[in-house]
């Protein structure tokens, strides 16, 4: 079966992130039989094993089996990392948690929160021929019907990712003289790109990657820290599910950096792809368009719950556009109304420049897809990268085209993508600086914009991954 993970992750080999363990913990039950020890084992032509007892009798030996379920506990030498990730984070897992909640005593129940990404919502909207607002409201209705307590939109946590990225760029641009590795700054929201960078280019590229957390992981902080406090719960009492357009986000959620040691809980417990939510709807026998729309939940009372909001700058979050416009204003006092993109060798590689009196003040680019990431990284290595900031995404055409989005076999994929892009773009864009609730959270939850809290909850670190050189890792 072709791997559902992005091209970048397929090439880097997931098994190096979730390594095979040397010892299998599965105990094999051996029935003790009467009689003294030594027996011979004969191997038949068909590969089956027969034990020949001392009295000449034979007994067919059972094969020791290690099933997928056995391997959920350990990182798995038999099962591959991919299989572990996909089964540990699946809609079946969510159903198990919801069922357990129904049976459990109130003190044992977990608060189930689902955070939906705008890209997944757009994909579902296209499939069910609904507008984004109705899709959001009906999805909320569906999740609550099956036992979920709150349904949030990751566009809210994206405000923080964008603001932190903007601030980080301006700080690094100003500090260029002191630090050779300050620029270019590379976007960090795409886990396919991050894992590829950690594995392949290690210590060389990592200093260039923005430390701002992705919207998924900011939501992890919001739900398991801020929201948990509000609900008077410890983080392990919340089961946080996100709905994302790709499988790579499952790997992101399982990063040790996003595991809360104190409470032994992940910031994001389970990532479901858009396709998995679709399957969940089918299995529950629910037709999304037929549901009554429910009011939208929001993380803070100040925020509008009438309709979902989004950001300008394309379907992958708008990092380039936000960092560019903010930098133009902060560094040069220039207000940029519309950002003009110039396509280069292919449509997934485009650049943007800010010029004044013939001088180039800012030179930014977006590089989507593995081949463009390759070229960018090689240019960086040779010191020939002319950009100050690059929005890097592993999937050609960006997140709206992620590997977990819904396919339509009866429609040309290009036409479907354009439809999804249109639906995504229909949602009202909001500037992160003006979004209700954001500033209050910086003040009251994070104790300021450059505080230690903000650094801990809104930023992360990267680690160069050594290539596994043991024979166990090679798949012939």
């Amino acid at each position, binding site marked *: 079966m072709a791997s559902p993970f992005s*091209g970048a992750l397929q090439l880097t080999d997931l098994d190096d992130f979730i390594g095979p363990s040397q010892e299998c913990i599965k105990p094999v039950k051996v029935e003790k039989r009467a009689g003294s020890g030594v027996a011979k084992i004969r191997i038949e032509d068909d590969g089956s094993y027969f034990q020949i007892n001392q009295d000449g009798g034979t007994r067919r030996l059972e094969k020791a089996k290690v099933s997928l379920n056995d391997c959920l506990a350990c990182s798995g030498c038999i099962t591959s990392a991919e299989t572990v990730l996909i089964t540990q984070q699946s809609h079946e897992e969510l159903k198990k948690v919801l069922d357990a909640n129904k049976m459990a005593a109130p003190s044992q129940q977990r608060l189930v929160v689902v955070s939906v990404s705008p890209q997944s919502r757009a994909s579902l909207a296209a499939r069910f021929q609904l507008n984004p607002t109705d899709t959001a409201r009906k999805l909320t209705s569906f999740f609550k019907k099956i036992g979920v307590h709150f349904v949030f939109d990751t566009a809210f946590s994206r405000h923080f990712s964008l603001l932190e990225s903007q601030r980080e760029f301006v700080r690094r641009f100003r500090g260029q003289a002191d630090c050779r590795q300050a620029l270019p700054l590379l976007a960090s929201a795409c886990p396919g790109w991050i894992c590829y960078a950690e594995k392949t280019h290690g210590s060389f590229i990592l200093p260039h990657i923005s430390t701002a957390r992705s919207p998924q992981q900011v939501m992890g902080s919001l739900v398991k820290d801020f929201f948990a406090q509000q609900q008077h719960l410890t983080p392990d009492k919340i089961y946080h599910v996100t709905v994302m357009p790709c499988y790579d986000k499952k790997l992101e959620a399982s990063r040790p950096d996003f595991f809360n040691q104190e409470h032994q809980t992940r910031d994001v417990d389970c990532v479901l792809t858009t396709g998995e939510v679709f399957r969940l709807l089918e299995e529950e026998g629910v037709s999304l368009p037929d549901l009554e729309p429910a009011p939208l939940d929001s993380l803070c009372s100040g925020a509008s719950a009438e309709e979902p909001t989004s950001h300008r700058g394309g379907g992958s979050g708008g990092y380039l556009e936000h960092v560019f416009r903010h930098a133009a204003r902060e560094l040069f006092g220039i207000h940029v109304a519309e950002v003009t993109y110039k396509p280069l*060798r292919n449509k997934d590689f485009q650049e943007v420049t800010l010029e004044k009196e013939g001088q180039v003040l800012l030179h930014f680019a977006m590089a989507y897809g*593995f081949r463009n990431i390759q070229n960018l990284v090689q240019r960086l*290595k040779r010191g020939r990268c002319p950009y100050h900031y690059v929005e890097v995404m592993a999937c*050609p055409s960006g997140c709206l085209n992620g590997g977990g989005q819904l396919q339509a076999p009866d429609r040309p994929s290009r036409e479907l993508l354009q439809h999804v892009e249109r639906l995504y773009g229909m949602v009202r864009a909001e500037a992160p600086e003006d979004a209700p609730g954001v500033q209050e959270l910086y003040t009251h939850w994070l104790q300021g914009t450059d505080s230690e809290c903000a650094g801990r909850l809104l930023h992360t670190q990267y680690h160069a991954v050594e290539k596994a050189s043991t024979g166990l890792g090679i798949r012939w």
Partner: protein
Amino acid sequence: MKDSLVLLGRVPAHPDSRCWFLAWNPAGTLLASCGGDRRIRIWGTEGDSWICKSVLSEGHQRTVRKVAWSPCGNYLASASFDATTCIWKKNQDDFECVTTLEGHENEVKSVAWAPSGNLLATCSRDKSVWVWEVDEEDEYECVSVLNSHTQDVKHVVWHPSQELLASASYDDTVKLYREEEDDWVCCATLEGHESTVWSLAFDPSGQRLASCSDDRTVRIWRQYLPGNEQAHLHQAHSQDVNCVAWNPKEPGLLASCSDDGEVAFWKYQRPEGL
């Protein structure tokens, strides 16, 4: 009189290791060899004997598996188990490494220049085929990364006149690729071999592709374009035609049978020129 092979000369090209591959330059004046000693040697004649004209070392950290001359003869590409491909530029008798193509995850098994000289393809044990483009300033950029094969890719070869690329793999298939809009796509998969396909070669006209395999067969492939029907029999039978069978010994003898209970025998003659 029986044909004979007369030995002209023998040289210790890659001492204490294996010589993996040879390539004559387009002009036929030089032979490049590469091997397990991580070096590439260029051989030419001096009078009656073959001598080593230059040694290209310092390019690779591991075995050099294949070398390929560019169509113009001024460049040599070398594919190595160290996961890189070096491009060497010829300057009279000297060769200088002008760039190293990185990106493959592990051993590069083959490299090939497109007939235009602007494109290069590499393939690797990492199951991928990469297409590179070179510009006027000798800058190389990756144009596409193709992940169609499910196992180690052993060989890549370009069509002699079209921008069509073929690859052979441990997954028992041959795949063909062409450019569509702004990316390369796999446009065909040739199945039939029962084991690793080791190598490929197009005939000079480009109409036929030969593949050889660990299954001890050589297969010849030909492209059939839509509308390639060569003959059409209307009303061959009065009802459904159930079966057709070519006679194994007599060329052109065809039998067909039908729901009408009849068996018909046909003689097929190929039109002139095919």
